[in-house]
């Protein structure tokens, strides 16, 4: 395998970013998309070649590429180095493949947008950082990608920066991610302090060399801190709050970053560091509990959302919970498996939702949809595949991956294992319910949208706020001054855009179709033995996960019968979810509202997402800002820091006034001072004698 080619995997998107980012605004749109697509397609092809190389006989199951040193000081060095193994390969495939498809989709979706060049530049930047993340051979380089995707996410969420909500969401995402990074950084510092390196191979080698019985201790600290990072990136409790808000970004962004790739980085990282996590059963338990809780918690919120993208966002959080749960029960390959299938179906869900929104000229509220299945059939069918996949309907991809997780959780055993399994199972039911709810509300029933309004309104996207359409991004100042609020652009857009409900163009639905196929068959690579498969996926990842403490522990007893039983149970639960949704939203559309009225408190709680944002606001953000403003800014800085200086200055000045008081202007009082001074001087001379005085040193030494 040619090293240069491998280096090209991340650098090409970066080149794309630089080209589009600096001079892209002068390009025609076609050139922008050509550059962006080309610089994503080529890496995808290289990954394909790499895949074939790795599959070929005699190829190493992992190898490292080392480049120039990045930081080099005495005693510590980190290089630009990429490590490639099977895990990386899977991630590379997902990132480049799904990434490329979403790029294609975006060409159509963003066609009318201002800042087209900017969008693709950011997307390419994201690809670069994501690829660095998965390729990195050290924690520190991983952190580059880690932070970088956060940046790209920030930029893309805030793509419609005119809208305060978008800008806020971008900021929120970055800051919450930073909280996670805080943990990640501390973990890295501890790693350096203990192992003197951040190189994966080096660190894991040292950990593996530790006595087998050694667990916990500082490793627990490191793992917990790493998990803080993962929780931030992968939107786990308590740091999940940024992800729903991130839906402010354009829909392809939600698909790529906030569903398929970036948010799974946390899961990837845990899997990558499994050697460490295996040494800390406590952390694993924490991971499992948090993952499971997140899955359940987010799913419940998802049941009452009306915004189609928000439903998907909470489902993403929920599914990420499953992956984390998998990691927590040390079923890393199951987690990665679900990561992959999730990438397919969740990207598809978002893209299809985008297609719906596109069709309805920007409508995102499911209450204003309905009966769309005939109007936009391609979208409908692809979305259906995705919904079935996410709900885990046999034989869609989601079925295999989710079942694997639930099974692994169950066989972990113990009260914790069973509880987690139960919660996971219920979550699967809820998932089925809210996904089918979405499905029914969107595609079935009476059309609830205002066809006439759609026909006359212009074809702006959901992401546009009517008043704040981001125009003139590439115009110079004078144009801005003259053209506010930019009517000519609007007219042009209107003229160019077909009115009414419409199916998306081919450039959008082809990626949908591909992803739909993947959602359907994607799970077949991991068919468990119980279902007659060979679980090739797990075997593929074995070289990666075979090391570490888990591998040394006795494997829990497995049973095909149990596995089949559990699969059947979960299918049953899914079916129940489907039927509830069917009844509520298809057969008797009023039921849901009635129930909501009946259980008003519960509904309210869910509708307000458990008031978590508000609680954070009241308990953390406001007190912190208040503390900064009043206690720090006012008290400490104003009174103590500035006050000390002011007091000293004022005191000195006051003494100055005193000295000035001596100066009454009256000769007699002057004489008085002189006499007084004279008396003092005489007294001093007479009565005070210097005890010692040395004559030892001279100036002219």
């Amino acid at each position: 395998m040619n090293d240069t080619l491998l280096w090209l995997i991340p650098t090409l998107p970066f080149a794309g970013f630089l080209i589009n980012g600096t001079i892209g605004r002068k390009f025609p749109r076609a050139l922008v998309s050509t550059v962006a697509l080309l610089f994503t397609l080529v890496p995808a092809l290289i990954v394909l070649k790499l895949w074939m190389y790795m599959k070929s006989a005699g190829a190493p199951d992992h190898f490292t590429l080392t480049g120039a040193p990045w930081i080099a000081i005495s005693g510590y060095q980190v290089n630009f180095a990429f490590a490639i193994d099977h895990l990386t390969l899977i991630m590379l495939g997902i990132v480049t493949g799904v990434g490329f498809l979403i790029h294609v989709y975006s060409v159509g979706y963003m066609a009318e947008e201002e800042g087209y060049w900017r969008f693709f530049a950011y997307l390419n930047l994201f690809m670069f950082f994501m690829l660095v993340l998965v390729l990195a051979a050290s924690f520190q380089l991983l952190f580059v990608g880690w932070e970088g995707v956060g940046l790209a996410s920030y930029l893309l969420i805030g793509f419609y920066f005119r809208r305060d909500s978008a800008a806020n969401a971008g900021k929120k995402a970055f800051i919450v991610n930073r909280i996670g990074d805080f943990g990640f950084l501390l973990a890295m510092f501890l790693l350096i302090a203990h192992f003197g390196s951040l190189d994966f191979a080096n660190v894991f080698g040292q950990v593996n060399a530790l006595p087998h019985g050694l667990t916990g201790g500082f490793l627990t600290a490191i793992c917990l801190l790493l998990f803080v990072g993962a929780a931030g990136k992968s939107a786990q409790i308590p740091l999940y709050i940024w992800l729903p808000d991130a839906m402010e970004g354009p829909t392809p962004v939600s698909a790529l970053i906030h569903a398929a790739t970036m948010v799974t980085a946390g899961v990837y990282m845990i899997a990558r560091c499994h050697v460490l996590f295996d040494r800390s059963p406590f952390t694993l338990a924490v991971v499992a509990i948090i993952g499971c809780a997140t899955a359940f918690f987010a799913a419940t919120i998802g049941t009452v959302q009306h915004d189609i993208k928000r439903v998907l966002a909470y489902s993403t959080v929920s599914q990420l919970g499953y992956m984390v749960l998998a990691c927590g029960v040390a079923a890393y390959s199951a987690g990665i498996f679900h990561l992959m299938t999730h990438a397919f179906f969740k990207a598809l869900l978002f893209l299809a939702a985008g297609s719906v929104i596109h069709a309805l000229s920007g409508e995102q509220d499911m209450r204003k949809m309905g009966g769309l299945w005939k109007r936009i059939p391609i979208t409908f069918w692809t979305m259906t595949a995705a919904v079935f996949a996410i709900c885990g309907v046999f034989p869609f991809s989601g079925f295999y991956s989710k079942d694997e997780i639930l099974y692994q959780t169950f066989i972990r055993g113990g009260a914790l294992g069973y509880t987690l399994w139960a919660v996971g199972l219920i979550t699967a039911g809820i998932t089925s319910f809210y996904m089918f709810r979405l499905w029914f509300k969107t595609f079935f029933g009476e059309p609830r949208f205002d066809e006439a309004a759609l026909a006359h309104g212009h074809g702006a996207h959901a992401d546009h706020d009517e008043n704040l359409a981001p125009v003139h991004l590439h115009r110079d100042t004078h144009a801005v001054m003259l053209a506010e609020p930019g009517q000519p652009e609007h007219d042009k857009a209107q003229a160019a855009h077909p009115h009414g409900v419409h199916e998306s163009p081919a450039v959008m639905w082809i990626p949908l179709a591909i992803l739909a196929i993947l959602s359907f068959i994607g799970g077949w690579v991991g068919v468990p033995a119980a279902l007659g498969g060979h679980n090739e996926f797990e075997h593929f990842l074995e070289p990666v996960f075979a090391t570490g403490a888990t591998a040394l522990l006795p494997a829990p007893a497995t049973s095909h019968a149990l596995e089949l039983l559990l699969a059947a149970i979960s299918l049953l639960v899914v079916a129940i979810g489907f039927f509830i949704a069917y009844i509520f939203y298809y057969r008797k559309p009023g039921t849901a509202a009635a129930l909501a009225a009946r259980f008003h408190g519960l509904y309210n709680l869910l509708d307000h997402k458990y008031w978590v944002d508000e609680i954070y606001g009241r308990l953390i953000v406001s007190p912190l800002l208040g503390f900064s403003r009043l206690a720090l800014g006012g008290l400490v800085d104003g009174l103590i820091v500035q006050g000390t200086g002011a007091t000293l200055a004022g005191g000195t000045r006051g003494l100055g006034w005193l000295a000035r008081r001596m100066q009454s202007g009256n000769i007699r009082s002057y004489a008085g001072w002189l006499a007084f001074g004279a008396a003092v001087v005489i007294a001093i001379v007479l009565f005070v004698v210097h005890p010692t005085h040395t004559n030892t040193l001279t100036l002219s030494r």
Partner: protein
Amino acid sequence: MVPTSYYLILAAVLFSIGVCAFLIKRNVITIFMSIELMLNAVNLTFVAFAHMWHRIEGQIFVFFVMVVAAAEAAVGLAIIIALFRARQTLNVDQINLMKD
């Protein structure tokens, strides 16, 4: 026989009265006179010491002090006259244009 210290104490008394006079009197000329009183007190000290040491330098010094006093008187009174011309007062309490 009178102890020399008596003369010195007398001089100290006169000197202190001179200082007090400087502090009390309001008329510039009188204040100037109190300085003369202080100089006289110093002169008495000089003479007493000259007597004690049996050295003539003390008396010479007194002689020079008298000359200096005369010169100072000339200049001082001239300054007082100039001030009176400018301000029409001899009261020190009113000579306080400059303060603080």
